[in-house]
């Protein structure tokens, strides 16, 4: 990723709240969020969110989600370092060919390692027998690889944003939105196609055989300015809104909120600003879960630093584009 003269600087905030229904039932927060970024905002920036399935069959999915987000961020950062200044077309080809399979393999390895270190307890196995059936318990005791992976089942959403491109990877439910600061109206879109099979509570998952083939992928080369904001969220967030239009409105509203922030100077002030934004985000997500889906809600937001305070600046010429897929 080249550091050109008009270098983009990225910031990231994120929050994860335990679902209102999880609080009622005593279930933990089974979502996870991780990020890798340079403190000065120098690209690339990597953000991942994951949603553990949480059913009796997926009784360690909170760990599965943490492993997924950790691994995705770590592998993607390593991968991008390795790619260095490679041409976008090469990065695209390599990302598609290597990252999904690399993430799935590393996640499965981590699951096996976790089971070796923390074997299934009698209590866990008894719960599986009670709620799923004796055959599921037997399969776990016999080390059936599919049943073991199912215990940790989780989704994954990942974005890496650089100077002149971004890519998006998604396995399972949840949403990724990009917000473009077009004038006069911002444009909010979903960079990945919908998966029409993900209705009700069905999802694709890292625990499925051939999971790496089930990732949705988009590589976006910025022809103008990069997106102003990129939002990754677990399905508990979109499911909290009355309609998809109401959900997409999050994108334009967030851009407005960031534009209205005052520009802060100095590392410490910028950190304080991010912390204040995260506190607000936390309250918004609590509200969404209580008055919406009841599910765990996790949202990660990548934004261009120059968006902050831009409301008070002279409008830049509208040279932004929605990016080209290559």
């Amino acid at each position, binding site marked *: 990723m080249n550091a050109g003269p008009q270098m983009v600087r990225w910031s990231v905030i994120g929050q994860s709240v335990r679902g209102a229904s999880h609080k009622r039932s005593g279930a933990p927060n089974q979502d996870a969020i991780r990020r890798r970024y340079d403190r000065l905002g120098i690209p690339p920036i990597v953000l991942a969110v994951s949603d553990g399935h949480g059913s009796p069959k997926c009784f360690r999915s909170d760990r599965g989600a943490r492993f997924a987000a950790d691994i995705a961020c770590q592998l993607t950062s390593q991968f991008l370092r390795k790619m260095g200044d490679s041409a976008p077309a090469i990065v695209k080809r390599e990302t598609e060919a290597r990252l999904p399979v690399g993430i799935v393999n590393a996640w499965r390895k981590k699951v096996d390692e976790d089971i070796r270190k923390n074997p299934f307890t009698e209590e866990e196995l008894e719960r599986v027998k009670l709620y*799923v*059936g004796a055959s599921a318990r037997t399969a776990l005791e016999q080390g059936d690889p599919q049943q073991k992976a199912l215990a940790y089942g989780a989704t994954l959403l990942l974005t890496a944003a650089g100077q002149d491109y971004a890519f998006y990877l998604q396995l399972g439910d949840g949403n990724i939105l990009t917000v473009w600061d077009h004038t006069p109206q911002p444009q909010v879109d979903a960079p990945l196609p919908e998966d029409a099979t993900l*209705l009700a509570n069905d999802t694709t998952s890292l625990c*499925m055989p051939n999971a790496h083939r089930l990732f949705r992928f988009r590589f976006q080369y910025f022809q103008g300015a990069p997106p102003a904001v990129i939002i990754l969220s677990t399905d508990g967030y979109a499911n909290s809104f009355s309609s998809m239009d109401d959900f997409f409105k999050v994108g334009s509203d967030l851009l407005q909120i960031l534009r209205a922030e005052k520009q802060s100077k100095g590392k410490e002030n910028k950190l304080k600003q991010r912390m204040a934004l995260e506190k607000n985000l936390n309250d918004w997500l609590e509200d969404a*879960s209580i008055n*919406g889906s009841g599910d765990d809600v996790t949202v990660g937001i990548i934004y261009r630093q120059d968006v902050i305070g831009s409301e008070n600046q002279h409008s830049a010429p509208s040279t932004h584009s929605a990016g080209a897929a290559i």
Partner: protein
Amino acid sequence: MPERPGGSLAKRPLQFIWIVDCSGSMQGRKIESLNLAIRESIKPMQDVADENPNAEVLVRVVKFSDGAQWHISQPTEVHGFKWSDLDAGGVTDMGKALTMVAEAMKVDMMPQRGLPPVLVLISDGQPTDDFKNGLKALMGQPWGMKAVRISIAIGEDADLDVLQEFIGNPEVKPLVASNVQDLTKKIKWASTVPLKAASNPASRPQGAANGGSNVQIPSPPADVQPSSPADVF
């Protein structure tokens, strides 16, 4: 603090549909007991809805005898739901009823963010029309396939094979009600336990390793012995 981003928030809709046999063989005590049992199940359903405030429970009713029709066509929020008694008479066009439910399960008729629907089929006999075609239409809809499907057999003449086929999961058996008290108990269970499970379902990974039901349903209640021989269907 800036105003919360995004449009209005809402609970997730959960469609609950009674599919009720109103054929001639249901006349008399069966239909009377059913009317009473469903009427009595409304309060427990409302209680379940109150315990799961993130689900908006919407109830509808399809009846079938000579053909099928919506008895209550509008998805009605459970707290505003009122039962109006059904009458019995005619044949058992169960296939037509399932075709009608299939129409309601079409993707463009269902909210994308909905919870798995709950469909409860109640019958005392054998279908007189093309049941398989109706079931095929229902299972041809993604929401039909993902629905929690429960069936209740009233009396000994009910076709258990058909009711099992409707459920589509060998782990879940049709509930058999052999007397008035039993029917009340099974209807109460069918109207509350699957509803509770579907109100707050965990995600389900697609694929064979998972198997079984879309939503984990606890075991049904044990049979109730009749308090008098006159209660037996």
